[in-house]
């Protein structure tokens, strides 16, 4: 993942500096703002890849901040952090113009993975429409014909497995967490109690990687999964 420039708008200074440090350690650059007005000013002027916005902020609350930015046609992807981890809160956040939503408390790996995906989406949106096919190493996925081949050999996938691989390949080179998979492949936002996603991924992996020297689907411990070419099976 190339370096990301983030703006973290969070009034809890301790949490904010922890986040900025953690992002720095992950190879990114993070600026901090501690209230809604500062955050709004920085977000308008600075060239950020992702804004991480707390919902409850002094001076200007998170949702109003996002709405104002969108009115000013600032399209920077926004990830909303919220202590109000409820379904309707997520919907309200996304309606206000947020791009993703993460309820507190969260794992930093989750925040990092989601921020990277948002930053990348910004890049690809700038580059144009989604491609009709993905290619990672010798693995190819054709979104129109729903065909998957590896080194020219066709791999037969169930519809759900196809969508799983599609999502992983769209974010090739990025960490995709289990909850992100549940959100985008199954369209549910709850937290699966058991390793339901892991089993689906390992089934997919059995079809995609079995018999090949190099693995495509990698497990990132403590975070999620990543599709990339190279690495041992």
């Amino acid at each position, binding site marked *: 993942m190339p370096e990301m420039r983030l703006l973290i708008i969070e009034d809890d200074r301790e949490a904010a500096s922890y986040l900025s440090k953690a992002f720095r350690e992950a190879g990114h650059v993070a600026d901090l703002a501690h209230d809604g007005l500062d955050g709004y000013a920085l977000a308008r002027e600075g060239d950020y890849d992702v804004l991480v916005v707390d919902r409850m902020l002094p001076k200007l609350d998170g949702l109003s901040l996002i709405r104002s930015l969108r009115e000013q046609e600032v399209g920077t992807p926004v990830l909303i952090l919220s202590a109000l*981890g409820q379904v309707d809160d997520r919907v309200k956040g996304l309606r206000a113009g947020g791009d993703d939503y993460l309820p507190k408390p969260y794992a930093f790996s989750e925040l990092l993975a989601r921020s990277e995906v948002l930053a990348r989406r910004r890049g690809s949106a700038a580059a144009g429409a989604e491609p009709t096919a993905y290619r990672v190493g010798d693995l190819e996925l054709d979104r129109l014909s729903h065909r998957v081949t590896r080194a020219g050999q066709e791999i037969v996938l169930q519809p759900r497995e196809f969508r799983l691989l599609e999502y992983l390949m769209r974010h090739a080179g990025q960490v995709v967490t289990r909850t992100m998979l549940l959100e985008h492949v199954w369209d549910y936002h709850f937290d699966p109690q058991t390793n339901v996603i892991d089993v689906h991924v390992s089934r997919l992996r059995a079809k995609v990687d079995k018999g090949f020297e190099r693995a495509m689907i990698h497990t990132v411990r403590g975070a999620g999964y990543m599709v990339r070419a190279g690495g041992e099976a």
Partner: protein
Amino acid sequence: MSAPAAFDPASRPPDGAWARLSSLFRTTAFKLSLVYLAVFAAFAFFVLGYVAWNARRVLDDQIVSTIEAEISGLSEQYAAGGLRRLVAVVERRSREPGASLYLVTTPAGEHVAGNVGALPPGVLAEPGQTETAYGRGADAESLTHRAIVRIFTLPGGFRLLVGRDVEERDRLRAVIARAFGWSLILVVGLGFVGSLFIARRVLKRVDDMTGITRGIMAGDLDGRLAVAGSGDELDRLARNLNAMLDRIGELMRGMREVSDNIAHDLKTPLTRLRNKADAALGSDDPAVLRAALEATIEESDNLIRVFNALLMIARLEAGSSRDDLADFDAGAVALEVAELYEAVAEERGVAVTAEAAPDLVVHGSRELIGQAMANLIDNALKYGAGGEPVVAVSAARDGDFVVLAVADRGPGIPEEDRARVLNRFVRLETARSRPGFGLGLSLVAAIARLHDGALLIEDNGPGLRAVLRLPAARSPAPEVP
């Protein structure tokens, strides 16, 4: 031990003997006793008065009839021997001792014979019966006695008086009046003392109750009111209060159990977390450190899950997320979630079957119902092991309700535990050894309540059947082109 601040100090009895007495006077028992006493005294007054009045009437009748007898005797003597004979008889009888009175006078009122000396003026002028004062003895001057007398006018203007002294009657009257007075004093006195005694007895029991309840308010929940065993109203009150205290105690124990469970269930993973980090500190091997950190993150994630679930239950129970509900097909949700878990079930050798009737439209949150179904299927996989490895997910319509069911063939839940497992942090002994926090079913129950539905735990004979019963949306979902 100090009385709790919530207790109104105004109702505490002030110190001092007078204050104690005045608190006695204020008791209901004392006031009631006084009312009874007044009623009883009035009754006694009436009865005694009636008796006294009757006694006097009987005595008067007796006196009058004695006088009548004397008169008939004297009139015989007069008829036989005229005035002279009458005077002789009167003189003779006057000398005899007794209460009988006689007097014969000239038309001018001068004494001729008899034992009556003095009479108020004018008495002799009016014939007939009357009650009057008189002087006893022929030469008496003062009117010191009383008598009932009858006066006749004899031919020739002479007057005859026949009477009887009423001293005896008056003495009896005085005796009765005295008895009357004393008995009233006694009744009132005894009644007053009795009231005080009763009031004190009742007050003492009430004071005992107050003392015990004050102790209970101060935190001693094991205190119980004494029951005298007489079955009176205070006993009934004490028994009811005791039953109430038992119930409160039960609820408190339940609360304590929940908080103990929270403390225990959160302490265990935290301790594990700390120990792992502690153990890793002693190592220089990057691989060991890395593994320890990853395990730490995993434990933290578990804790985050618990907090999320607790928060979510609290928020669902507060009913705060009702605004974003919409119509959706609950049958489709059941199938999707069953499919989500099918892979993990198969890995454990459990077959998940799923069937759903079409158009099971429910007004609510697809997310939450999905979460509820996930929890139920997860439970079935976790605790349904042991029997036939099958988990059946079904969605059907039952009248105005949509019924989503997850059934396993495991050991099930004994009937007496079925209501309990819906409580937060309740884990049955059989489940203690497995990972989990006892929040899954609580969350599902809260989701069901949010949708005005219910979570029912049923017997699958064998196994467990968890049923999510949701009201169907009133109008069918609009056709999606």
